[in-house]
């Protein structure tokens, strides 16, 4: 391999981080371009009076509202769900709730088992050793022996405590005879590498001030950027360059002043997420697009429709405290049972309700107006006395749910994206059925009030699909190792490549798959056809 570097990675999220570490360990020269900057943890204010006010701006999950360095336009006006992400070193793990879930064996065989979607070209067992490795890299805590998953190596750290909220949930599920297991999270429960033990500030999605969360900026980039890898921030890649034989020769990027630069590389790896990766591919060749002979770039966007069920209790559960994160999960109704009127399933997780402003100012806490004489009463009823069950539904791939470029290619700018996503009948039936069951759990927990929120809009934190992987170049964009069928030395390692979405959080599988693909590339690096 040759040029400015052996491997050029676009995006410093978890997929980029895991890949960069693997390449660097193999002695390759690695450059990573990241459009955002390092997270500013001086603005992580959990534990301070202004925590929620600052979070609503600086740690806003929606880039259209946050508008920080690295955020690009996402037009979601034609979408049932908004896309959420963090653009900066660490990617969305800077904001993730750190719920760490392995996909289940059936998730890789959806077509075979349920006659819908597509099978993956790999199985659970192909990923298993990589799950083990990335769980050590991301400081995962949890308890081995979960009967909802095949036997596995336990995570390196013990699970977060159940506290009063988790215990109540666990006892209710036991009463109903339904599955639960202590939560697996990328949250350090003891000092671990660069991380410190969690202090339970319900801050995970709003910038962890303690440094307990396994976000890629802390687990990977702090060390990598000090030597082995050249990490360039505020560098927005606009195009992958191809030579005249159609091989990737590098990328062009805009720096923070709008000046355009080129970097030449032996191999280019896109780790820009399921919106950012199709954005670059569609914008390359001056907007004509590359790697798209299948016509599938940008299609099959999946976003994990999400609903929740809030329970309010008479007792003080101290629910403003805790990891956020999940206390526990239930996969009782995860696998398909057609008698329910839909295929596939959902995961439930139990979290504390957290700080007060969020429960007084959102539209998800029922129809009663909070203003006037209700305010103080509702505040007392809710703060510390409430819990939230989250329900993540598997959504199946639909080519009409897609990402396209939004806006013209300008000299000083890179187009944003437009997303179109419609929730399917299968998903709606799934959500309604699952929320009914979760409502039964809240009854068993002794909730005095229940608020059910099916399929919410501002919840697109899992972005999946858009450059599907498979053996067949006619219907897929990349091969099972992430290599573009059309461009031999251009790779995609993020969740764009997932053929289906599963019904659980994706970061574990993103990291494990990135490691699998990176290791495969290292093994055959001398055979990769580079640009001339």
């Amino acid at each position, binding site marked *: 391999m040759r040029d400015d570097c052996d491997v050029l990675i676009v995006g410093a999220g978890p997929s980029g981080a895991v890949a960069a570490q693997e390449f660097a360990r193999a002695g390759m020269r690695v450059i990573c371009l990241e459009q955002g900057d390092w997270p500013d943890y001086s*603005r992580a*204010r*959990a*534990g*301070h*009076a*202004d*925590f*929620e*006010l*600052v979070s609503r*701006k*600086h740690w806003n999950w929606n880039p259209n509202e946050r508008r920080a360095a690295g955020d690009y336009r996402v037009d979601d006006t034609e979408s049932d769900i908004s896309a959420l992400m963090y653009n900066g070193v660490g990617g969305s793990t800077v904001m993730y709730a750190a719920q760490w879930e392995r996909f*289940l*064996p*059936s998730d*890789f*065989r959806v077509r*075979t*088992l349920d006659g819908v979607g597509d099978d993956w070209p790999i*199985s659970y067992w192909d990923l298993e050793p990589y799950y083990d490795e990335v769980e050590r890299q991301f400081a995962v*805590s949890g*308890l081995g022996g979960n*009967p909802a998953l*095949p036997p596995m190596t336990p995570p390196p*750290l*013990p699970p*977060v*405590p*159940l506290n009063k909220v988790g*215990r109540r949930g666990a*006892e209710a599920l036991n009463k109903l005879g339904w599955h*639960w297991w*202590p939560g697996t999270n990328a949250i350090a*429960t003891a000092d671990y590498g660069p991380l410190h*033990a*969690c202090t*339970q*500030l*319900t*801050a995970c999605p709003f910038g962890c001030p*303690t440094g307990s969360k396994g976000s890629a900026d802390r687990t990977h980039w702090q060390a990598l950027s000090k030597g082995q890898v050249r990490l360039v921030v505020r560098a927005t890649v606009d195009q992958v360059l191809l030579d005249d034989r159609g091989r990737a020769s590098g990328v062009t990027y805009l720096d923070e002043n709008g000046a355009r630069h080129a970097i030449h590389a032996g191999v280019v790896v896109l780790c820009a997420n399921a919106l950012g990766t199709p954005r670059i591919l569609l914008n390359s060749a001056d907007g004509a697009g590359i790697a798209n002979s299948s016509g599938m770039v940008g299609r099959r966007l999946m976003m994990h429709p999400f609903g929740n069920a809030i329970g309010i209790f008479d007792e*003080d559960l101290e629910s*403003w*405290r805790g990891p956020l994160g999940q206390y526990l999960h239930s*996969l009782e109704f*995860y696998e*398909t049972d057609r008698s329910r009127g839909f295929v596939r399933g959902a995961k439930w997780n139990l979290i504390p309700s957290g*700080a*007060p402003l969020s429960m*007084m*100012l959102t539209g998800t806490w029922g129809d009663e107006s909070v*203003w*006037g*004489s209700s*305010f*103080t*009463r509702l505040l*007392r009823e809710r703060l*510390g006395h409430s819990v939230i069950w989250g329900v993540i539904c598997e959504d199946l791939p639909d080519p009409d749910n897609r990402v396209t470029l939004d806006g013209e290619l300008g000299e000083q700018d890179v187009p944003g994206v437009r997303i179109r996503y419609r929730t399917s009948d299968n998903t709606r039936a799934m959500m309604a059925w699952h929320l009914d069951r979760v409502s039964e759990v809240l009854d068993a927990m002794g909730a005095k009030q229940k608020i059910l929120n099916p399929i919410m809009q501002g919840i697109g934190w899992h972005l999946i699909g858009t450059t599907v992987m498979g053996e067949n170049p006619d219907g897929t964009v990349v091969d099972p190792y992430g290599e573009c069928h059309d461009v031999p030395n251009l790779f995609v390692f993020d969740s764009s490549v997932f053929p289906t979405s599963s019904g659980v959080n994706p970061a574990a599988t993103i990291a494990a798959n990135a490691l699998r693909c990176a290791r495969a590339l290292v093994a055959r690096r001398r055979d990769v056809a580079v640009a001339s």
Partner: protein
Amino acid sequence: MTTHGTDLPVAPVPPAARERLAKVADALIPAGAGLPSAAQAGVHAELLDQVARARPDLIPPLLEALEALGADLDLASVERLAADAPRLHEAITLVVAGAYLMSPRVTASLKYSIQKAKIVDPREITTIVAEGLLDQVIERGPRYRLPPDAPSEHGS
């Protein structure tokens, strides 16, 4: 002045605007349930300064909202603002509720210690296992489906 929310300078809030805010704030959050009203808590005074330091971007729309409310500083006018100018409604309600929940008097009365740090105790799980809370989950056995091509040691 240090701000945590944005890089904007902190705009001063004139006394007349503070007086108007006190009235609106009390309409939005009157005393009740053993808690003070918004003005009693100081939402228009020191707490507003704290909001301005944390979120200077909220002050211009707050001033605009106070202006837009006109003479009637009551709940009905704020509700009208929600329909006519949602951006201003969002700003004024966020400032009032945000400031109120920063009040030490309010948080003390709620027994809410602003997320006081408490390091996790990783030994808690040992108690849970010893108590047998997980026994019935384990006794029910595996919950997952095996695809036909699962490795033979997994039972297919």
